[in-house]
């Protein structure tokens, strides 16, 4: 038995889909084979900003083996309409123009045409034969430059919305919003220490190892089926219906295994193109995206500029904070600046706050969600300023965080009041950790060492829609159909919650992720919602099965259903100890008392997804000669509410930490003056490898989320938030130099040390 009286929750069973994945048998998006399959490729813009004067596809169409060529003129041109894709609100006209450029290309790599041919090589040859005539326009890739008067304008018809009102000003600033609480000027007047700093971060990519893919078949009856890797099959269905202007009933999405998403596999890129090519040819068409096109043609997370000011009294109380946050949206409006603004000061209880956010279009790919989108940029600024204030006040940075920590009842600057949260508990666990209590040995090799800490917050989405459909087999096992695609072990975490509810083992549940025609609408696997929201549905399904089994037992035993109890996995009749049976024993007979036992449940819980807080501790060693930063030890502490499968909670924490380390130390889109990304490969966009890292230690704190029957909080996103700031604080501790520009790569560190005598 695990803790809290649970039998299944808190244990570490082998995941249901594990054997297929370690033996290479699991079928991912690109693995599907169909009869008569054609292969597609995309023609992309070589310019960051240009008007399309003409597209001549005749040479490509005449190339032997080519079956069809498609451009934006084959897509219905749709009006402005906003749609909620799960982690972001998008304008569907923009989404369509991002799939195939119409009128203008807005970034290098913007898709302009698609080809279907008998094999991939022929399709790629044909792409080179498409002649596009461009009028090249001036471009802008930096967020501050894009905000200047006179900057090249991406959308001539886009007027800035400011404080909720549309203005007459045409600019690249799509939106300016403000959150205000209290009187920041008064708060700063009370402060004894005030620190104001500027920060920049660069564009980074989610870097999932599986590239995007879509295989479409538009059959003779007009029914469209798409096999793809996605975080949300229903979200793909909705996007296809809108972009192609067809009824959802004509679209079926079959989600195959997905090789990583992190927010980047919600928007569609290839799917509509493959669908059009299939309609034109009558054949299924498969498209897979080369890695360089993933970097240049899909949605990374934005570069940003932040200015943060915070003030505290000499006795260590935060009195006021302000933030100016300008985030690059990329080619179309919709950066995660809003989410960043909701997170930026949220680990703290600060009475006077003002946050100004700017969503700014630049000639880069349309940004997309990436693990706690917007929050990492924000925490980099706040958490290094908090470190500086703690230092000025001469207090321990974690004790300062505990003293000023947010708790139940604290109001966020963007409005909501916290329910029960584990912010202070998490910080205290870091403070009391063996790592933080240990002393850091000096380096013996001329390098310098330092320790840094940082905290972070992510909302976790409020449940969302989930559906589960189950049938009980005569042997007492349960087939469980779900609509949540499984990116990192959620078949297991959801099946475990059903097993717990009805007193079975995790292995008694057989979970299947099924297509959009086979299950009720289910929101995306995103926002750290799946183990919370679909787990909530699994618990409700278990309750429904218990009610149904009581009905069956009532018939089998000829006793009233309301006199049957269910406890510890056993059904029993109160007045006769002979009349009792386990779930499995009853399952073998239940079919005789009313047909097969099935249940379908859908939920959309009102309560909070349970905010997630994390505090990290890192020890680094800095080589002053080269600027290289090595990580000696890393500990991540996080409130998981209740850890359903602790191994996969640890895995989320470790994976998030390492993505944050990559963001902090190395990863960036490097642009040249021509507006072209110069490092669009895994060789040059250098993600962390085994050799760059130590083991990542984890401490799971469990402050139950009161909105979930088992106390679950989402765990997937917040671990990426603290690392860049924790590393900056550790580098400062080692060298005496503060770095306020990401990434803190060897050249930047070396330059900063040289300039500051560190």
């Amino acid at each position, binding site marked *: 038995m695990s803790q809290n009286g649970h039998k299944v929750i808190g244990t570490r069973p082998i*995941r249901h889909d594990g054997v297929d994945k370690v*033996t*290479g048998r699991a079928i991912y998006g690109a693995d599907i*084979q169909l009869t008569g399959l054609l292969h597609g490729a995309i023609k992309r813009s070589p310019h960051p900003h240009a008007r399309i004067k003409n597209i001549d596809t005749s040479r490509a169409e005449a190339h032997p083996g080519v079956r069809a060529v498609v451009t934006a003129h084959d897509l219905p041109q749709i009006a402005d309409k906003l749609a909620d894709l799960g982690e972001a609100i998008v304008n569907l006209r923009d989404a369509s123009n991002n799939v195939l450029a119409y009128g203008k290309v807005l970034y290098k790599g913007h898709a302009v045409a698609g080809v279907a041919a008998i094999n991939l090589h022929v399709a790629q040859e044909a792409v080179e034969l498409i002649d596009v005539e461009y009028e090249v326009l001036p471009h802008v890739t930096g967020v501050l430059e894009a905000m200047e008067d006179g900057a090249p304008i991406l959308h001539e018809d886009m007027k800035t919305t400011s404080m909720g009102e549309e203005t007459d000003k045409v600019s690249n600033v799509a939106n300016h919003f403000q959150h205000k609480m209290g009187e920041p000027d008064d708060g700063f007047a009370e402060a004894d220490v005030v620190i104001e700093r500027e920060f920049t971060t660069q564009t980074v990519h989610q870097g999932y190892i599986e590239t995007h893919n879509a295989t479409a078949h538009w059959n003779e009856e007009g029914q469209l089926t798409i096999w793809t890797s996605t975080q949300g099959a229903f979200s793909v269905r909705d996007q296809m219906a809108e972009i192609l202007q067809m009824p959802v009933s004509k679209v079926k999405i079959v989600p195959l295994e997905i*090789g990583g998403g992190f927010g980047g596999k919600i928007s569609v890129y290839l799917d509509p193109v493959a669908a059009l090519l299939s309609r034109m040819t009558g054949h299924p068409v498969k498209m897979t995206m080369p890695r360089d096109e993933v970097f240049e043609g899909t949605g990374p997370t934005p570069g940003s500029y932040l200015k943060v000011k915070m003030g505290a009294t000499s006795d260590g109380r935060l009195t006021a904070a302000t933030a100016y946050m300008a985030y690059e949206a990329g080619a179309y409006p919709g950066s995660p600046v809003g989410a960043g603004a909701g997170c930026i000061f949220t680990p703290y209880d600060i009475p006077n706050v003002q946050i100004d956010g700017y969503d700014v279009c630049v000639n880069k790919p349309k940004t997309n969600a990436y693990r706690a989108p917007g929050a990492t940029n924000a925490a980099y600024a706040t958490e290094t300023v908090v470190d500086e204030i703690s230092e000025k006040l001469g207090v321990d940075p974690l004790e300062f965080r505990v003293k000023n920590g947010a708790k139940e009842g604290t109001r966020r600057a963007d409005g909501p009041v916290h329910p029960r949260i584990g912010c202070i508990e998490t910080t205290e666990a870091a403070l009391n950790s063996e790592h933080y209590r240990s002393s850091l040995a000096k380096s013996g090799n001329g390098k310098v060492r330092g320790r840094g800490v940082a905290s972070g917050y992510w909302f976790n989405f409020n449940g969302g829609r989930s559906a589960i459909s189950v049938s009980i087999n005569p042997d007492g096992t349960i087939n469980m159909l779900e609509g949540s695609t499984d990116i990192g072990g959620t078949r297991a975490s959801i099946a475990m919650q059903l097993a717990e509810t009805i007193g079975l083992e995790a292995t008694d549940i057989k979970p299947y992720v099924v297509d959009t025609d086979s299950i009720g609408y289910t929101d995306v696997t995103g926002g750290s919602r799946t183990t919370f929201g679909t787990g909530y549905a699994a618990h409700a399904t278990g309750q429904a099965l218990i009610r149904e089994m009581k009905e069956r037992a009532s018939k089998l035993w000829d006793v009233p259903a309301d006199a049957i109890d269910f406890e510890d996995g056993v059904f029993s009749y109160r007045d006769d100890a002979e009349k009792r049976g386990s779930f499995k024993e009853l399952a073998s007979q239940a079919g005789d008392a009313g047909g097969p036992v099935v249940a379908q449940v859908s939920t959309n819980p009102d309560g909070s997804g349970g905010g997630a807080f994390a505090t990290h501790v890192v020890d680094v060693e800095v080589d002053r000669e080269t600027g290289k930063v090595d990580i000696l030890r890393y500990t991540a502490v996080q409130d998981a509410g209740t850890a359903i499968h602790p191994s996969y909670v640890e895995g989320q924490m470790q994976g998030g930490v390492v993505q944050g380390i990559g963001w902090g130390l190395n990863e960036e889109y490097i642009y040249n003056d021509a507006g072209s990304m110069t490092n669009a490969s895994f060789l040059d966009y250098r993600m962390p490898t085994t050799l760059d890292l130590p083991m990542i230690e984890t401490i799971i704190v469990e402050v139950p989320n009161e909105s979930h029957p088992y106390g679950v909080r989402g765990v997937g996103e917040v671990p990426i938030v603290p690392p860049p700031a924790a590393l900056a604080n550790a580098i400062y501790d080692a060298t005496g130099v503060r770095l306020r520009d990401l990434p803190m790569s060897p050249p930047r560190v070396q330059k900063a040390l040289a300039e500051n005598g560190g």
Partner: protein
Amino acid sequence: MSKKVHVQTTINGESVDFLCEPRNSLLEVLRDDLDLTGAKEGCNNGNCGACNVIMDGRLVNSCCVLGVEADGCEITTIEGIGSAANLHPLQQKFLEHAALQCGICTPGFIVSAKALLDENPNPSEDEVRYWLAGNLCRCTGYDKIVRAVLDARNGA
């Protein structure tokens, strides 16, 4: 399109003949012609290791080997390392340690780790980290992968 070439190989212990264009990579042949889709394409230029196979005892990126170069070679893919009924110790340890999340990189890691253990049955953590640096994983942060490989060592 150029003329196809007849290639004779041994794959996972079985004699396999195939026809391929000279420009086709071994990865393409495995996935598209031989239905061995366990090798994955993550980058197609030798940086991620998701397509790794063992060719005449050497670990290779199958995306960087031409199909025609495989003529006369013995190749082991993930499909030849173990099956559900007969898991290799590495596969068992990956499951027990929860050393996979999305799983797309897992076949490549297991093939690479097998090549390591074939050459050095008792590697240190540093040796494991050095050897596996050619395989990218974006989900796990590598912690549980390294632990799984260490736990699969002889006498571990």
